């Protein structure tokens, strides 16, 4: 269902969201056709020979053919030429993929277990949502906080591993409006398959409006700021907020003010408990959930942001 909301599949490949994607698909189309023909020759030939030269009597005599230099040359040389041709074709497209445009809109991407964070030059931060204007070069400068991830947009046919301790990059120029999937394609642990994000391609005007709206988060009431922050830090990939279902971590729905049974004993969930859970998550962990899974947010949130988060958690009723 979600797939169709996002981008319609075209002949077994996702929507072509960029020019590069169409180029890749052309090459892939050629490879498919060439492969199909080779398979027909090999498999068809095999079936034909098996039938044509089936054993008729126990004493069948067979031809004694040890080799044929010309034929052998042909079936070494022709494949070689084809292989080199597709190599060159692939190289050509790869060159475009890896040549970073100048004057592109640059977005900083950080992968962490198990969410994507995006940061724009204006300081706007989002979690698992990348909003970009249509028909504009966008360059992603990517790194990881913990282990390898891989930033993969199927519709744009681009993918790049995200590596802690260094920057890697990707670029694209989306020419279709709409929403596209982002997957993590490098195994990164428990929620690897849940490390999804969305690329939202909008018009330039919508993009600008969105940026302004996002940068005014500071003006919003505390609880709403907390909600934004909750999204930006991708807390929701591990904690559900709308019902009591457990994800990687316990649900936060209707939790505030109740008592929580932790490995260390029973505690009331108050402001200080939430604060401690965010800043040093392993001090007290809910029974049934392993330690060491949630990363610490020490040093990543200021006092106001902490209060905003707590305020938001209070509203989850």
């Amino acid at each position, binding site marked *: 269902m979600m797939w169709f909301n996002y981008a319609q599949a075209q002949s077994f490949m996702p929507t072509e969201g960029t020019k590069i994607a169409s180029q890749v698909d052309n090459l892939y189309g050629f490879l498919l056709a060439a492969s199909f023909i080779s398979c027909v020759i090999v498999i068809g030939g095999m079936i034909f020979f098996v039938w044509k030269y089936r054993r008729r009597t126990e004493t069948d005599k067979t031809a004694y053919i040890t080799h044929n230099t010309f034929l052998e040359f042909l079936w070494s040389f022709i494949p070689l030429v084809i292989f080199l041709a597709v190599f060159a074709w692939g190289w050509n497209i790869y060159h475009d993929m890896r040549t970073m445009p100048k004057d592109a809109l640059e977005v900083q991407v950080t992968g962490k277990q198990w969410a994507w964070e995006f940061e724009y*030059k204006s300081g706007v931060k989002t979690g698992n949502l990348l909003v970009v204007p249509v028909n504009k070069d966008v360059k992603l400068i990517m790194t990881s906080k913990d282990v390898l991830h891989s930033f993969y947009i199927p519709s744009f046919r681009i993918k790049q591993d995200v590596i802690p301790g260094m*920057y890697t*990059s990707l670029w694209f120029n989306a020419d279709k409006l709409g929403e596209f999937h982002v997957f993590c394609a490098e195994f990164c642990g428990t929620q690897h398959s849940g490390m999804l994000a969305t690329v939202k391609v909008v018009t330039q005007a919508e993009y600008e409006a969105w940026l302004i709206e996002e940068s005014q988060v500071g003006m919003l009431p505390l609880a709403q700021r907390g909600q934004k922050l909750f999204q930006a830090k991708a807390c929701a990939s591990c904690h559900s907020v709308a019902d009591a279902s457990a994800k990687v971590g316990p649900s936060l729905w209707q939790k505030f003010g109740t008592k929580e049974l932790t490995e260390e004993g029973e505690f009331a969930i108050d402001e200080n408990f939430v604060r401690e859970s965010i800043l040093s998550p392993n001090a007290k962990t809910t029974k049934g959930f392993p330690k060491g899974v949630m990363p610490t947010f020490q040093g990543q949130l200021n006092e106001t942001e902490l209060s905003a988060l707590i305020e938001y958690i209070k509203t989850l009723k």
Partner: protein
Amino acid sequence: MGNNHDENHAHHITPLETYLKVAGALFALTFLTVIAHHFNNQLGVLAAPIAFLIATVKAVLVMLWFMHLKYDSVMNRVIFGAGFFFLALLLFFSGLDIWTRVAEFSTL
């Protein structure tokens, strides 16, 4: 390969004198390494290549005489050489990647 060798072939015996000469050369080269080390500052960038050149010469001496490769079959020499070749391959391609990587710098 193994079928038509001389069945009663007597193994080559390296003379005692040769062993002593080779050992003498190895000792001398070790001293030379250390002496070169004392002139590191004068040698500059050449210091490392010189040290490894001497080490390689020593290694070759050990291989040819102590390990008897000089009198061993071609196959055994090829086998041993292959080890070094594939090692060079590992270094070459890993290095090719690392030294042609263009670092991306964050502009934020």
